[in-house]
């Protein structure tokens, strides 16, 4: 009896361990792929990319692929924020600045005063959908209404033309760059006359650990609203048309409306260099803009250029 019991207690942790190890190794399998090195002249050297947190996932994938193809190239990527990236460009402490906003005229002046000529390349486009359950009567919202929903000021769908039902507003957690982008551009209404930097997400907002979970909650909950990237659109959720202000027409999100700039919650993702890029930096940006590089854009969940 005593012996039997002790073996049993040994087996359970063992089974757990096996389960966990299997799970972890299962997760890891996808990332270990070996790309064959490209032909031609061998590139070597190193450079760094500093800037937007939002662009970082995409840049990281490109940097990984590029260094797989050219093993002698090393790229350091960091994402403290677009502002930091642009400051680094002005101070010549970075080779490429990745930014999710365009450089301001005052910053161009500062750069020129420091002998830096900012050169802009758009590498991808980012669009955020606002999705609700298909059973929801609401089909379009203004940015101001979205802001009021996410600050917790509007809590019932009937206030924006829907059924008399509570709004379950879902956001990503603070780990996510999208959390901050949505806060700045929608909650705080950046660039609109009603812009208010003091607005924060309301305390009743659900903060979920993944975009997929948010989408699946919207798919089964008629009261929910969430903002995934374009790549997460499935048939079980309904994207809303977004109106910049109450007077503007609602625009449905699509690759086309994201590209022509009519969809309000879309923006270019940019690289800035000092003057026209040359050498390995040019090779890297050319790779980003190539069909192969742009294919990665869709994989990471952004809108490719073409």
């Amino acid at each position, binding site marked *: 009896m005593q012996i039997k*019991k002790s073996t049993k207690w040994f087996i359970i942790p063992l089974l757990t361990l096996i389960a966990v190890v299997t*799970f972890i190794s299962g997760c890891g399998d996808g990332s270990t792929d070996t790309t064959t090195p490209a032909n031609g002249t061998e590139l070597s050297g190193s450079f760094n990319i500093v800037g937007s947190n939002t662009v970082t996932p995409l840049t990281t994938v490109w940097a990984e692929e590029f260094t797989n193809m050219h093993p002698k190239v090393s790229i350091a990527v960091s994402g403290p924020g677009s502002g930091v990236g642009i400051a680094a460009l002005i101070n010549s402490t970075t080779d490429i600045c990745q930014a999710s906003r365009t450089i301001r005229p005052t910053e161009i002046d500062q750069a020129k005063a420091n002998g830096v000529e900012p050169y802009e390349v758009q590498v991808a486009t980012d669009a955020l959908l606002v999705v609700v359950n298909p059973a929801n009567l609401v089909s379009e919202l203004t940015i101001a209404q979205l802001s009021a929903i996410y600050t917790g000021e509007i809590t019932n769908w009937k206030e924006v033309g829907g059924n008399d039902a509570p709004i379950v507003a879902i956001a990503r957690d*603070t780990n996510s760059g999208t959390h*901050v982008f949505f806060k700045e551009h929608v909650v705080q209404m950046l660039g609109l006359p009603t812009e208010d930097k003091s607005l924060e997400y309301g305390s009743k907002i*659900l*903060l979920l650990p993944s975009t997929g979970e948010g989408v699946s*909650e919207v798919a089964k*909950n008629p009261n929910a609203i969430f903002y995934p990237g374009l790549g997460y659109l499935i048939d079980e959720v309904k994207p809303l048309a977004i109106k910049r202000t109450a007077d503007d027409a609602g625009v449905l999100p699509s690759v086309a409306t994201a590209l022509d700039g009519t969809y309000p919650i879309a923006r270019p993702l940019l690289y800035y260099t000092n003057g026209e890029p040359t050498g390995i930096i040019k090779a890297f940006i050319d790779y980003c803009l190539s069909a192969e590089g742009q294919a990665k854009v869709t994989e990471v969940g952004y809108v490719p250029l073409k």
Partner: protein
Amino acid sequence: MGERFIEGWIYLAGLLTIVVLLGIIILLLKEGLPIFFDTPPWEFFFGTHWYPVSEPPTFGIMPFFVATLWVTIVATAISVPIGIACAAYLSEVAPDKLRETVKPVIELLAGFPSVVMGFIGLILLSPLVQSAFNLPTGLSGLTAGIMLAFMSLPIIISVSEDALRAVPDEFRQASYALGATKWETIWHVCIPGALSGITAAVMLGVGRAIGETMTVLMVAGGALAVPVSPTEPMMPMTAAIASGIGNAVRGGLQYQALFAIGLILFVLTLFVNLVADRVLERQKRKFQR
């Protein structure tokens, strides 16, 4: 020589666990305590606003603490009656053969990865909870508590069953001799006799519920308001750490605040486990005469 070598290894292995434990405690203290220079303990514990990425940041962990409390209460309220009833059935009523098949299966439940339990809660339980209680969303402390109840059941059943079986058979025989029925024997003799063991089982289950992370992160909803009822979305302490640590700058204020939450969790579970240990020890001594 061989014997010496093996003894040495075992000694080292034992020492290692102590070193690791001390290391964890020191790390938690070193990284977590500095937050109290910035946010006084009073504001940290009783503050109701958690805005770590705003300027200036605010760190109040009341919402997380209350959420952990709600989730643990729900989990305990469900798992304790079911767990003890199941243990009493297995130890006092079920035939030996049944017990020997059922108990390992129940213990196997403990081995389910918590992500899997999270998925089950997300896909199966949350729509049920939403429609049953007519809630705006099924992602709530209640859903998380129910899932945690399932996760702490195996511990509660297994340890209580051991405690019940440790009650000497003479007690039961004496009870029957006095004309007590089976139910009266279980209720008035076996359960009181094994009470300290059952208490320990409950404490271990509670400890599990407090410390569980992945499941609550996935199904509790993650709202930052102080929850006034378990049916609201909420973010328990473990989930707050998991969802914040990714973008916390090492050594920054948010990083320190998250470590301080970790420290509180550690103290809580340590306390619960110590109580359980004490009580179990007493149970052992009780029947050792």
